[in-house]
């Protein structure tokens, strides 16, 4: 009898000790990144796990894309979502408005009331919705004008014109060079092209790129409206329209379908293979050139501006870390997240993947950037980010439709952009006030 009783007590003690645990918590961390970036992330998680036995993180790779989060949403709804998720910063406001994300304002305040000042301002701005914080910024990028020195020379121009030390070129200058580089064959189809400012299949010729370049404002958050009909944005679209018309809209499409069809591998990026002399794109292209076109003679400079003397600009995207709704370990998840998105985590990621950090002090550490990347880092100072809207994806798609219509000469800029306002503002209205 006594023996049995002792066993029961022993068992009870053991069980209760196990239950208190030592407080070990297990978190799941999802990302849709793939190698090589995901390898770096995994290594970082391993570092964390070693140093933090009480908070163990399980790293899971989930196929998906930036704005398509069917899997995340169904999982969170069903109560089987992850504790930490890698989210495109651009969509934070939208997901927050939908109720997918956990409000981490309190945790941020507890960690450091001035946390905002440690991050690049535009990156922090994207993590806010209705005055609350829903994400921590992670990495970022920027966009420049890439130019092929050989092709420019062959057309009779001195590539030194493009040197950023001289400031940005004007669009008129760029057009002159570009049209000289254009070549067609007997049937009139383009075999070589100087510049297609509005292409988005192999470059970043988005509406935002040129809207920002012309000094346009895409939204008035205080008034709770999107403003696609901002006169500067209309001017930008007019510029794109005129460029398309001058080159022949359908002929340009055919060129793009030929050399940059959907799912074209980066090895065959038209700029890399010397079919296009100039393109606006981001720092990820540096890696491509290194791997697939190491002998390419190229340079980078500011995105060209409408008038001489205009200040250059660019825009940035990037990722962030969030805690989806329904996580049972918010505080622990936040601890992990703030380490990843903090100086240690971001440093490891920058070194491992050559992306740029959003932690300000890291940006001032020149040793982290190879020479080619420096220019991209410099222009972060003049970089915009897209307005954090609960209808971000809708707005983006509507603007893209408008850009399409204008460059295929189906619609004039003002009408096309007005349609965007008409489509998006009623939807935005549901979320007012925004601040």
């Amino acid at each position, binding site marked *: 009898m006594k023996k049995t009783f002792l066993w029961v007590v022993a068992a009870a003690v053991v069980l209760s000790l196990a239950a208190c645990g030592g407080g070990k918590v297990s978190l799941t961390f999802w990302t849709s990144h793939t190698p090589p970036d995901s390898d770096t992330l995994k290594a970082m998680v391993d570092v964390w796990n070693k140093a933090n036995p009480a908070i163990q993180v399980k790293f899971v790779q989930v196929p998906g894309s930036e704005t398509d989060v069917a899997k995340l949403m*169904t999982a969170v709804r069903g109560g089987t979502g992850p504790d930490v998720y890698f989210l495109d910063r651009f969509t934070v406001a939208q997901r927050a408005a939908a109720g997918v994300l956990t409000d981490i304002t309190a945790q941020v305040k507890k960690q450091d009331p001035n946390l905002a000042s440690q991050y690049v301002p535009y990156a922090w701005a994207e993590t806010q919705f209705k005055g609350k914080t829903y994400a921590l910024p992670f990495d970022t990028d920027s966009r420049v004008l890439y130019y092929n020195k050989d092709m420019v020379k062959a057309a009779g121009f001195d590539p030194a014109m493009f040197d950023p030390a001289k400031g940005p070129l004007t669009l008129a200058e760029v057009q002159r060079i570009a049209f000289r580089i254009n070549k067609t064959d007997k049937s009139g189809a383009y075999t070589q092209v100087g510049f297609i400012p509005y292409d988005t299949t192999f470059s970043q010729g988005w509406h935002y790129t040129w809207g920002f370049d012309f000094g346009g404002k895409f939204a008035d958050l205080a008034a709770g409206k999107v403003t696609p009909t901002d006169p500067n944005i209309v001017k930008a679209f007019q510029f794109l329209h005129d460029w398309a018309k001058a080159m022949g809209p359908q002929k340009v499409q055919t060129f793009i379908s030929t050399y940059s069809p959907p799912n074209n591998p980066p090895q065959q990026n038209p700029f890399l293979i010397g079919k296009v002399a100039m393109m606006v794109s981001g720092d990820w292209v540096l890696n491509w050139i290194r791997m*697939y076109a190491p002998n390419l003679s190229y340079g980078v400079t500011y995105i060209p501006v409408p008038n001489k003397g205009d200040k250059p600009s660019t825009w940035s995207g990037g990722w962030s870390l969030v805690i989806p709704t329904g996580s049972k370990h918010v505080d622990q998840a936040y601890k992990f997240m703030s380490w990843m998105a903090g100086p240690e985590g971001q440093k490891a990621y920058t070194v491992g993947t050559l992306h740029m950090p959003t932690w300000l002090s890291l940006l001032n550490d020149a040793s982290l950037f190879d020479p080619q990347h420096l220019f991209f880092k410099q222009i972060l100072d003049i970089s915009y980010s897209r307005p954090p809207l609960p209808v971000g994806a809708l707005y983006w798609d509507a603007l893209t439709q408008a850009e399409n219509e204008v460059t295929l000469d189906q619609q004039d800029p003002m009408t096309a952009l007005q349609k965007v306002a008409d489509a998006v503002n009623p939807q935005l209205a549901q979320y007012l006030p925004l601040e």
Partner: protein
Amino acid sequence: MLRKILGLKVLPRIVLLLMCLVYFLPFYWMVATSFKDNAQLSSFPPSIFPSPLVWRNYVDAVNYIPFLQFLVNSLVLTAGATLGAMVSNSLIAYGFARIAWKGRDALFYVAIATIFIPFPVTLVALFDIFARLHWIDTYLPLIVPTFFGQAFYMFLIRQFLMGVPKELSDAARMDGANELTIFSSVILPLMKPAIAVVAIFAAVNAWNDFLTPLIYLQTESRYPLSIGLQFYRAEHTVSFSLLMAASTLVVLPVVALFFFFQRFFIEGVSLGAVKG
């Protein structure tokens, strides 16, 4: 005379060969691309025949993801889904075709109507159901529903069964056999070919389906090959030749399956869809 020979022997063969060429091209292209390296992929226009043949791509493709694990998972999922489709749809189609009962046709049309329901919204509600059952991250949501019939396959087998003479069943009934016996002894043997058709379609669908497993599975080690293929597409790059190599490997088992079942397949459908 010459015209007749041309018409009967040569012309059909030429046309047939041309059609086969067109239909074979996608597969050929996939395989050819799988043997190219970066340099060959960069060349424009793309070459028709890869040279040299980079066999290494297949090794790399298999190492890029947990290929073997995913293969086993695909096999399990496909076997389960195929079994479910074969078992349930035969029983259900039998009920809709070989027994005359009140309300049968009306109910059948309801079943057909479900073919027209688009999946996105029902996907969410369905996920809720499975979440409540705690079936998320298991194979249950992917296999269990197949044991409850699917309209497309029910329709197919039912058409087939409507063509088998009623007298067969009536005679057995008059002999006093119960319905289950009639099903298993009299009708089932005749149904084998139709069931084989459903088996192939169900197997191919399960093998290639990536959306449903994507939604319901969360642990990487449980993913099937169809999701595995998605991993070759990174955010700003696509490991093209590896993707093609992997896709070729993923397709081969299905091709083998087809050759094996081809026999049943033709015979089976033969008696089936003609009748109303």
